[in-house]
C-alpha cells in the first residue's frame, strides 16, 4: 500500500493523481464484512457494524476507546437509525479490518483551510476518500472518528433496519411500508411484533440498500442528547479490561530495557547475575536492548535493572541546547517546508515601516518536547501457537498491528487476531507500533506460551515519540490600531515524516502539521504570511493530542496578544474585528459574554484569552488567574466550541475540559529535556501533570453553527497555553515566550 499511496496522492497539497486509476468499480466496491468470517450459525451480521444473535444486538464501534467516549457515541449513530435503545445493545471494538478504514483522516491534510467550504475545497476533501480507502487504515486520530462515522454508521443502522423490516414483511405477508419499528422490534399494523433477534436469520438473504434514507435531526431520540457511557460501570468498578489486565493460562511476564541513548543500539550485555534472580526464565537481546521473561512483572522489572548493557552512544544531538540550535538554524531557505499563506505584500510593508506612526513588533517563542505519559504504560499480550497469533493490545491502529504481525511471524492475515482492548489513555502514543512489535517478537521466542509485555513507567517516559520541540519568530506591523502585516515563521521536526516513516510509508510534499493552526486561522489581515520550516528529526516525534496546533496556537495567540497590548487594543475586540468566519466569530463572542470579559476583576486578579481553530473546530477560551501568597492560582476557565452538530453534549464538555487540563499540564510543567544523548525525565516525579487541587472550575458552551460535524478529542487543547500566558501578562506584565511556564512563574 505504501507504494500506491506514494504515487497516488500528496497529503497537504492539491494533487490527487489518478484517483480513477484504481478503477471506479474497485473503489465503489466495499471492503468485505469482516464479521462474516467468524460467524456462529446463530449469528447474523447485516453490516460490518451490526451483529445479531440470541444474546442480543451488538454494535461494532471500530475506533480506539481511550477515554473519549467514542464507543458510546459511535454506537449511538447506529442505534438511532436501527431504532434500538442504547442501553439494550452491546458495544464492542470488533476485529482489525480494512472495512473500518478511516475515510476522514486525510481530509485535514488538504491545502485548503477547514473554514473553506467552497465547492473546490469540498471536492478535494471528498477525493481524499480514495487514497484513504486504498490505504485501508483503521486508525483513530486527528479527531476524525465522529466526522468519519457520522453518515457511514447511521447508514449502517438504517440499512440493517430496512432489511429487518423486509424480513418481517415477508414473514407476515405485509407491505414493508406498513410496518414500523420501535425498541428493537418490527411492528405490524395490527400490533403483532417480531424482535430483531427473531428476524435476523430471515434477514440474512435480503440485499441491503446501498443508500438508505436517514432520519431528519428533528426525529432523533438518542443523538443530540447526553448518554450514559457504555463503559462507565466497568471503569467505576475495576472490571473494564485493558490489555494490561489480560490473563491467559500459563502466561509469562516480560519487560524490556532499551538503550536510553536516542536512536542507538546495544553492543553487548551481561545477564549472568540477572539470570539467577527469582522468577527469571529468559533474558534475550531484543532490537536496541534486552527483554526479560519472568513469572511476574515485578520480577521481570527488577531483573532488567540488573542486566549490564553496553550501550552505543547517541549518534547526534546529545543535548537540549544542540537541538534548540538545530531548530533555530532551520529557519533557512534549505529547510522551507510550506508557505500555505502569503497574502498581500508583507515584505513591502516591513520595508516601509520606518516612521513613528507604525509600530513594529518582533518576538521569538519556543516550546519543548513533550511526552504523552498515558496513565497505562505501553503493554500488550501476545500468544503464538499452532500457526496462529492472538494479540491483545490497546492500539489506535489495529490494521497496522496485523501488518507488523505478518512481517514478524510470516503468518497469513487470517491466522492473526487482534483483540483491541480499552486503553488507559492514548493521546497519539498508541498509534505507534514499537511495543506491539516487541510483544510479537517475544511471543515468537516463547512460542507456545502466552506473554504479557509491560513497559515500566521509566521505559515509557524515555522511549516515547515526543511532541516536537518547536520555535517561532514573528514580525508584525500595526497602524492606526489595526494590524497591517504579520510574518510568522515556525520551525519543528516533521511528525508526519517521523511517524509515517516508522510504518514504512513516505508521504511526499510538505508536512501540513508543522504549520497546522498557524496558517489557516480565520483572521483577515491584509498582509499575512506564514512559513513553515522543517527541522531535522532529532528525537523520534509523533502525534501528540492536537499535534502541530499544540505549539502553533501558543505562538499565534501569544503574538496576537502582544500586538493587542502594545497597541492598546482589547484582545477580544481586536480578534472580533479580524475574524472572517461566522462560527469562529460566534465562539469568541460567546466566551466573551460567558466570562463577563468587559467587567473588570479586582486587584490581584486578571484574565487572558486565546482562540484556535483546529481539526475544523473553532475554540475560544478565557482563563482567570489570581495572585496568592503561595503562588499563582488558576481561578476559572471558560470555553466556547463549535463542533457543527453536538451528538453528546455531556461528553463533548468532558472532552473539552480534559483537553484543557492536558494542555495545562504541558503549559505549566511539561518538558522533556536531553542530556548526554538521553531523555532526562523518567517518571511522574520529574514529569508531573496537573493535580486535582490545581484545576479550577470550568464552563463550556457548545455552539452548532459550523456547517460540518467535527470531532472534539483535541481542539479544546491548543488555546489554553496562550490564554494562560496572556493572563499572566495582564496580571504581572511578564510576557511568557517559552514553555513550560513554571520556569519563571510559581504556581500553587
Amino acid at each position: 500500500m505504501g507504494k500506491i499511496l506514494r504515487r497516488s496522492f500528496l497529503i497537504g497539497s492539491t494533487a490527487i493523481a489518478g484517483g480513477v486509476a484504481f478503477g471506479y468499480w474497485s473503489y465503489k466496491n466495499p471492503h468485505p464484512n469482516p464479521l462474516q468470517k467468524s460467524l456462529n450459525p446463530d449469528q447474523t451480521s447485516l453490516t460490518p457494524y451490526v451483529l445479531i444473535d440470541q444474546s442480543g444486538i451488538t454494535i461494532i464501534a471500530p475506533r480506539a476507546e481511550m477515554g473519549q467516549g467514542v464507543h458510546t457515541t459511535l454506537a449511538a449513530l447506529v442505534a438511532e437509525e436501527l431504532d434500538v435503545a442504547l442501553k439494550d445493545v452491546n458495544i464492542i471494538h470488533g476485529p482489525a479490518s480494512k472495512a473500518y478504514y478511516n475515510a476522514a483522516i486525510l481530509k485535514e491534510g488538504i491545502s485548503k483551510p477547514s473554514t473553506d467550504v467552497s465547492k473546490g475545497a469540498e471536492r478535494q476533501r471528498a477525493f481524499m476518500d480514495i487514497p484513504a480507502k486504498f490505504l485501508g487504515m483503521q486508525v483513530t486520530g486527528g479527531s476524525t472518528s465522529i466526522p468519519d462515522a457520522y453518515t457511514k454508521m447511521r447508514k449502517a443502522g438504517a440499512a440493517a433496519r430496512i432489511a429487518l423490516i423486509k424480513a418481517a414483511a415477508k414473514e407476515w405477508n405485509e407491505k414493508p411500508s406498513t410496518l414500523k419499528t420501535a425498541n428493537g422490534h418490527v411492528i405490524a399494523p395490527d400490533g403483532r411484533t417480531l424482535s430483531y433477534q427473531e428476524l435476523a436469520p430471515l434477514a440474512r438473504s435480503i440485499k441491503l440498500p446501498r443508500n438508505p434514507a436517514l432520519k431528519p435531526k428533528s426525529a432523533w431520540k438518542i443523538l443530540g442528547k447526553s448518554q450514559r457511557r457504555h463503559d462507565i460501570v466497568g471503569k467505576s468498578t475495576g472490571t473494564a479490561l485493558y490489555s494490561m489486565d489480560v490473563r491467559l493460562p500459563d502466561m509469562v511476564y516480560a519487560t524490556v530495557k532499551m538503550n536510553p541513548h536516542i536512536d542507538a543500539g546495544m553492543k553487548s550485555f551481561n545477564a549472568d547475575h540477572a539470570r539467577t534472580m527469582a522468577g527469571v526464565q529468559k533474558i534475550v537481546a531484543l532490537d536496541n536492548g534486552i527483554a526479560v521473561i519472568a513469572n511476574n512483572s515485578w520480577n521481570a522489572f527488577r531483573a532488567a535493572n540488573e542486566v549490564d548493557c553496553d550501550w552505543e552512544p547517541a549518534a547526534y544531538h546529545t543535548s537540549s541546547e544542540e537541538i534548540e540550535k538545530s531548530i533555530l538554524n532551520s529557519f533557512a531557505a534549505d529547510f522551507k517546508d510550506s508557505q500555505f499563506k502569503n497574502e498581500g505584500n508583507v515584505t513591502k510593508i516591513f520595508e516601509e515601516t520606518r516612521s513613528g506612526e507604525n509600530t513594529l513588533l518582533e518576538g521569538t517563542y519556543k516550546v519543548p518536547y513533550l511526552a504523552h505519559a498515558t496513565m497505562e504504560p505501553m503493554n500488550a499480550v501476545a500468544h503464538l501457537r499452532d500457526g496462529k497469533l492472538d494479540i491483545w493490545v490497546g492500539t489506535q491502529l489495529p490494521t497496522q498491528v496485523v501488518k507488523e504481525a505478518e512481517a514478524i511471524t510470516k503468518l497469513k492475515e487470517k491466522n492473526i487476531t487482534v483483540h483491541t482492548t480499552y486503553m488507559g489513555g492514548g493521546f497519539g502514543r498508541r498509534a505507534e507500533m514499537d511495543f506491539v512489535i516487541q510483544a510479537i517478537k517475544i511471543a515468537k521466542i516463547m512460542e507456545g506460551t502466552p506473554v504479557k509485555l509491560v513497559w515500566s513507567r521509566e521505559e515509557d517516559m524515555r522511549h516515547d515519540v515526543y511532541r516536537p520541540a518547536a520555535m517561532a519568530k514573528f514580525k508584525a506591523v500595526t497602524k492606526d490600531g489595526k494590524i497591517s502585516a504579520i510574518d510568522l515563521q515556525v520551525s519543528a521536526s516533521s511528525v508526519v515524516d517521523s511517524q509515517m516513516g516508522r510504518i514504512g510509508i513516505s508521504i511526499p510534499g510538505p508536512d501540513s502539521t508543522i504549520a497546522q493552526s498557524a496558517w489557516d486561522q480565520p483572521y483577515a489581515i491584509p498582509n499575512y504570511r506564514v512559513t513553515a520550516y522543517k527541522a531535522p528529526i532529532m528525537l523520534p516525534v509523533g502525534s501528540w493530542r492536537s499535534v502541530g496546533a499544540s505549539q502553533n496556537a501558543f505562538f499565534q495567540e501569544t503574538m496576537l496578544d502582544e500586538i493587542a497590548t502594545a497597541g492598546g487594543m482589547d484582545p477580544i475586540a481586536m480578534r472580533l474585528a479580524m475574524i472572517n468566519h461566522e462560527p469562529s466569530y460566534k465562539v469568541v463572542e460567546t466566551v466573551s459574554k460567558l466570562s463577563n470579559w468587559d467587567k473588570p476583576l479586582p486587584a490581584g486578579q486578571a484574565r487572558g484569552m486565546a482562540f484556535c481553530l483546529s481539526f475544523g473546530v473553532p475554540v475560544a477560551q478565557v482563563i482567570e488567574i489570581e495572585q496568592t501568597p503561595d503562588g499563582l492560582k488558576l481561578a476559572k476557565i471558560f470555553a466556547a466550541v463549535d463542533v457543527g452538530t453536538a451528538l453528546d453534549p455531556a461528553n463533548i464538555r468532558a472532552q473539552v475540559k480534559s483537553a484543557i487540563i492536558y494542555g495545562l499540564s504541558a503549559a505549566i510543567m511539561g518538558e522533556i529535556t536531553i542530556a548526554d544523548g538521553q531523555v532526562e525525565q523518567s517518571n511522574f516525579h520529574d514529569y508531573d501533570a496537573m493535580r486535582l487541587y490545581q484545576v479550577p472550575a470550568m464552563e463550556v458552551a457548545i455552539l452548532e453553527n459550523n456547517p460540518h460535524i467535527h470531532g472534539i478529542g483535541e481542539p479544546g487543547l491548543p488555546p489554553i497555553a496562550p490564554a494562560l500566558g496572556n493572563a499572566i501578562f495582564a496580571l504581572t506584565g511578564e510576557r511568557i515566550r517559552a514553555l513550560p511556564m513554571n520556569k519563571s512563574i510559581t504556581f500553587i
Partner: protein
Amino acid sequence: MKLTINGKNYKISAEPETPLLWVLRDEIGLTGTKYGCGIAMCGACTVHVDGQPVRSCSLPLDQVEGEITTIEGLGTPEALNIIQQTWIDHQVAQCGYCQSGQVMSAAALLSTIDTPTDKDIDEAMSGNLCRCGTYPRIRAAIHDAASKLKDA
C-alpha cells in the same frame, strides 16, 4: 505468606519483597488495581489496608499488616458501593485507568471525614493523577457521595 484480601484468605508464594500491587495483579489476578508509576507518585495502585489508603506499588509483601480491600472488594457491577454508584451518576471516568485508585482514595477520605470541604478533597485526592483530567467530576462526585452516605 498469608493475606486477607476482600475478606478472603490467600496463601502467597511470591518473594517477600514483591510489592503488593504485583501480588494482587499477577499472582492473584485482581487486576482492578493498576500500575501507573511504581514509585508512589500516581495513586493508580491505591488499595486499603485496614481502611487506610496505601500505594500498593510501594508496599512490599512482607510489610503488609492488616486486611486488604481492593476496588473489587469495595463493590461490584452487580452490587455497587455508593461511591461507585456516584462515580457512575457523574460519569466520572474517561479512559478509566486511574479510576480504581481514585475511587479507593475517595472511599478512604469519606470514611474519615463525612462532609469533606473542597480543601479536604484537594488534600486527599492530589496523590491520584488523572491524565484524562476527570478532576472536576471527581470533586463533584465526592461531594455528592458524601451527602448520599449521610442519607444512607
